[in-house]
């Protein structure tokens, strides 16, 4: 697709492996370099070793509460914008996340186009 700009480095955290894999591939075609993690702990480990432009974080995960992960992200990489993915009806939790510093939230299931748009927006804001 467009290879002019540098790819956006995205940390995608979601415990649904199939979802993460296909997103990785599709975003790859859209100049977004995706590193995925399927658990909060794994995400934190990855973040320790790498930098990212944007993070997309699923709120409901098995091992750790998304909000907790968000807090850790804030500590480890305060500059990195975080987009939250919430299930239907978790608007309350999403607002809590925003209050804590997440920059945006999307309701699952969401379309790829929408997600890509939000990621690009967030990356642009950071930079």
């Amino acid at each position: 697709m467009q290879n002019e700009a540098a790819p956006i480095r995205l940390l995608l955290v979601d415990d649904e492996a199939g979802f993460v894999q296909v997103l990785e591939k599709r975003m790859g075609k859209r100049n977004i370099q995706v590193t995925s993690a399927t658990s909060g702990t794994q995400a934190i480990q990855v973040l320790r070793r790498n930098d990212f432009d944007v993070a997309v974080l699923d709120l409901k995960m098995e091992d750790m509460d998304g909000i907790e992960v968000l807090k850790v992200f804030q500590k480890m990489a305060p500059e990195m914008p975080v987009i939250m993915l919430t299930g239907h009806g978790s608007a309350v939790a999403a607002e809590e996340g925003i209050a804590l510093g997440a920059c945006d939230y999307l309701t699952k299931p969401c379309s790829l186009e929408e997600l890509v748009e939000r990621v690009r927006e967030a990356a642009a804001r950071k930079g």
Partner: protein
Amino acid sequence: MTKALPPEALKNNETLLRTRAFAIIGVSILPMLLISALILYQFHRSYQEKAYAHLGTIVKKHKLNIDCFLGEKSGDIRFLARTFSFEELSDESFLQDRLETLQQEFDNAFVDLGVVNGQGVQVAYSGPFKLGRAVYADADWFRQAMTRKFVVSDVFLGLRGLPHFIVAVRDNTSGQDWVLRSTIDFVKFNNLVESIRIGKTGFAFILNRDGELQTTLPRNVHLESVPYRDFLEQHQADPDPDRVYIAQREDKEGNDFLYVGMFLKDGDWLLVYRQTTSDAFADFHRAVRVTLAILLLGMIAVISTSFAVSRRTAYRFAEVDMERQLMNEQIVETGKLASVGELAAGIAHEINNPVAIMVEEAGWIEDLLEEEEFQEGENLEEFHRALTQIRTQGLRCKEITHKLLSFARKTESRVKEFQINDVLQELVDLSEQRAKYGKVTIETSFQEDLPLIQASETEIQQVLLNVINNAIDAMEKEGGNLFLRSRLVDSNVIVDVIDTGPGIPKSNLGRIFDPFFTTKPVGKGTGLGLSICYGIVKKMGGDILVESRVGSGTTFHIVLPLPEENEEDASTES
């Protein structure tokens, strides 16, 4: 709402309470009986004392009258004998004058006068009988008169065969004994004695020491039945003139009599008064009858009240049991609904993930199709169409779960203000699929800008969903129309749920809100739905009304009151 109780519910409690009823009866009635018995016994004793005393007094008075009469008569004769000499009185015309004076004075109580000499020969006589020169030497009274100063004889049949008695006085002031005698009018004396009449059966008579009647008895009375011999035997030796003797005896036919006796004439005669006991104690018996009647009524009252109360209590217990059972079932039902809601929400949530993945994979294939090698392919269009279809269906899944989650999300039953039309629309969306399968078309007409109502959203959802589901169920077989309308009337929001189903027959119409009433086959529906709905709506001050005609359909009107502030909005708006 009428409450009909199943008979088994009553039976269990009835046996329990019957025992209690008997206990209450026993505890109430036993003291009543004891007290009544005690009081009646005391009353009987004291009444008897009083009655005897009363009778005694009357008989005593009567004795005095009789004694007075006799005393007076003998006194008069004595006076004559003392005042005039033997010679004077032997003059028959003089004697006649004296007799006439006596008769005038004493109303003919003295029948005749006779002067008898010491040998017992009557030397002068004045009176109605032809007694000329009668000889009384052997007469009892003569002999007695010779030994005593004066005598009142027993009644005897005289020379003429008529009953009479004699007052005779002996005098010997002139040196020789002579006797002045007079016959006393027996009839007058008899009447005097018989004049005592107390009650209906009381009468008096006089007997002498040997038990011979001195006065007449009433026609239907026989002397043998009178136990005078007992009196005489007991008190023969020392008759006390002031003592009243009272006894109660039965005659041969079993009739009970009361006898009162007093000695007259220094013990020579016995005045006997007789009355049937039932007559003497008439007042007492009446009092006893009244008391027993009251006692009986009291017992009946206690027993019937006791049973009535216990029956009422049994019914109340059964009612309470029923209510409790109903509440338990409602709680279970509500719990089930809540679980199902949660389950559905969980499932909806879970489905979202695989659906999202599928849609994304289809998207990925689309992405790949952009590559050079596929642009020339024959089936490119078909690939795109198929992939788009996958995306469309995925979106549809999302909508379905979205609806369900939206409905299930409202788990809080807190009261707050909300717009009823939103709830209605949500329910319509939810019910669309079901309606389609049942060949039911849904039409809506919601009044715009309805004021908000204040209630528990979950409860209102439950009520409306219940009614809507019932309507769809009713029309399942043949299909039909479901019309939902919301409107504002005065200070109420009214939701109409109108179906074109088979309708509800009149006999069932009054019972559809009764708990456990259902026309659905066993296993399908508990019959609790509408009763719970009724309870919910009533609790918030609303109402639920139904109209139905067999063959045309059923209409439910759910009336929901506006909260008070909104009532003003409503009036200003309309």
